[in-house]
């Protein structure tokens, strides 16, 4: 810091940027029906959307952990032809418009899709079911987990795994007892981000799983619907989503904001 006053030409747009973030939040907070908030959240429609969202998003995190951690490990610790392509594909859902993801899921897993027909033989239907909502959320949110875990694996000192090997630990034990504990912070951060993203998922879910109250109508979908009829309900749900987002942000602050003081 030089101590000189920063030029107004930079300060004014900077304040504008901050305002663009804060003004809508203030708008939301200004309309929160504080007195009836608890009744709103526990009301039938809002309550069921809340529970369904929790169920779907937590299942999505679980699926992302079971499938994503091994993929992150493969990307971090092995080399194979086409690895760069695989890594790019993994991050594709982060930049792909979610609605496109939903269309793609529908075309693959729908009644006429090749994967959908295969699953139908097993008696599994995904579109317009709760399981479909979980798949849509996992599709969109899993990249966050994979990226965080792969970065954690790259930073972890592989010599700990070597030390475990010389102490008699077989590969599977090394993974569970050494690798995972070493990357626990990255794993937790990745899971938190994945959960936040899954909880807020809208486009892919509504396209692939529909908007069926109690089955696939998660919180973001309920907010959208409620805006027409039950504004207070929509605002209450929005507040819940905002609090969750802020919670994840505060929980991960050391990861992103710690260095800047």
């Amino acid at each position, binding site marked *: 810091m030089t101590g000189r006053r920063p030029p107004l030409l930079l300060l004014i747009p900077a304040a504008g940027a901050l305002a663009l973030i804060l003004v809508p939040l203030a708008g939301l907070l200004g309309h929160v029906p504080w007195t009836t908030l608890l009744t709103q959240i526990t009301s039938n429609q809002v309550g069921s959307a809340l529970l369904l969202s929790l169920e779907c998003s937590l299942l999505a995190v679980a699926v992302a952990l079971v499938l994503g951690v091994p993929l992150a490990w493969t990307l971090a610790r092995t080399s194979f032809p086409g690895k760069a392509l695989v890594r790019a594909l993994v991050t594709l859902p982060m930049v792909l418009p979610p609605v496109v993801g939903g269309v793609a899921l529908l075309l693959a897993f729908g009644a006429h899709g090749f994967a959908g027909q295969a699953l139908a033989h097993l008696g599994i239907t995904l579109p317009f079911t709760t399981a479909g909502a979980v798949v849509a959320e996992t599709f969109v949110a899993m990249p966050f987990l994979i990226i965080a875990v792969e970065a954690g694996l790259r930073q972890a*000192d592989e*010599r*700990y795994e*070597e*030390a*475990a*090997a*010389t*102490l*008699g*630990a*077989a590969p599977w*034990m090394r993974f569970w*007892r*050494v690798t995972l*504990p*070493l990357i*626990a912070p990255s794993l937790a951060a990745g899971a938190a981000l994945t959960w936040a993203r899954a909880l807020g998922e809208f486009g892919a879910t509504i396209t692939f799983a529909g908007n069926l109250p109690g089955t696939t109508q998660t919180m973001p979908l309920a907010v959208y619907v409620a805006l027409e009829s039950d504004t207070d309900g929509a605002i209450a749900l929005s507040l819940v989503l905002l609090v969750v987002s802020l919670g994840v942000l505060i929980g991960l602050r050391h990861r992103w904001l710690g260095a800047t003081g």
Partner: protein
Amino acid sequence: MTLEALVGVRIGALDLQATVSAQPGELVAIVGPNGAGKTTLLRALAGLVRLHSGRVAVDGQVIEDVEGRISTSPERRPIALMFQDGLLFPYLTATQNVAFGLRARGVPKRSATERADAWLARVGLADRGSSRPAQLSGGERQRVALARALITEPRLLLLDEPFASVDASARVDLRHLLRDQLSLYSGMRLLVTHDPLEAMALADRVIVLEQGRVAQSGLITEVTARPRSPWVATMLGLNLFRGVATATGLDMAGTTIAALSDVRGQAFAVVHPRAIALHRSRPEGSPRNVWRGEAESLDRDRDRVRVSIAGPIPVVAEVTPAAVAELGLGVGGAVWVSVKATEVQVYAE
């Protein structure tokens, strides 16, 4: 019960080709400059680096043989490696760290914990079992690492610079502890160090590794009395010369240092720095080797001063500070050097 290993490894610029053997109860030190391949040698024995050529046998059992296509994974080798910086698992307590090898072998948690605590007591850390590595000092961490390596009763224990990450004050204690614990351990041990003093304090035999090759190996007394590489001589603080031994002495491309020896042909000669006398003017009397040189540097080493002298035969002399003062010696100052022929030890290459 023996270790017989021929290790051939190529990694980057390193081309390692070394034969290593050890007998039960024996501690073999592997010394050499940085980058000589010492750590790679240990890692290859432990199975962390694949051999390009050679074979490793412990107690007659072949655990790796490139030609025979035999390779045992690290966790199945009867070999433990104590890493330079300990590498204790940071998220486990001292007890859990020590118990790790037993748990990996399927020992139930309770008995593994009991045995780990008993081992911690053996290394003088009975009350630190619940501490995490970050709460331990460097010396304490290495004690835990030693207990962790020994608890599985390996046939061969590999120690990679066990004192490098420990500050000087804790080093003496750790060395005593290591010597005591190793004397109770019946297996073979290889100790990697870049410090010949450490090797001398602990080892029975020494292998000098330079640029991936064994430059010299033998009993400590042999190697210190008859160094065969400039690095060993420098580390021991000795003057080493290489040339052709003749009836009059050692001939080094025209310059001869007089010696009394029956050795003929390619040979080394070693002169202890304390056997080199310095004079203000040309000395009278019997010394056969007398020449004039120039002091290049003076280094205080405890109660002595090591003086590097440039001249027809560059040498290092070790004299008392009083002698330096008496000679009025400073950097760049002229000085007369004399060495008795009887102080020049000549041995064949």
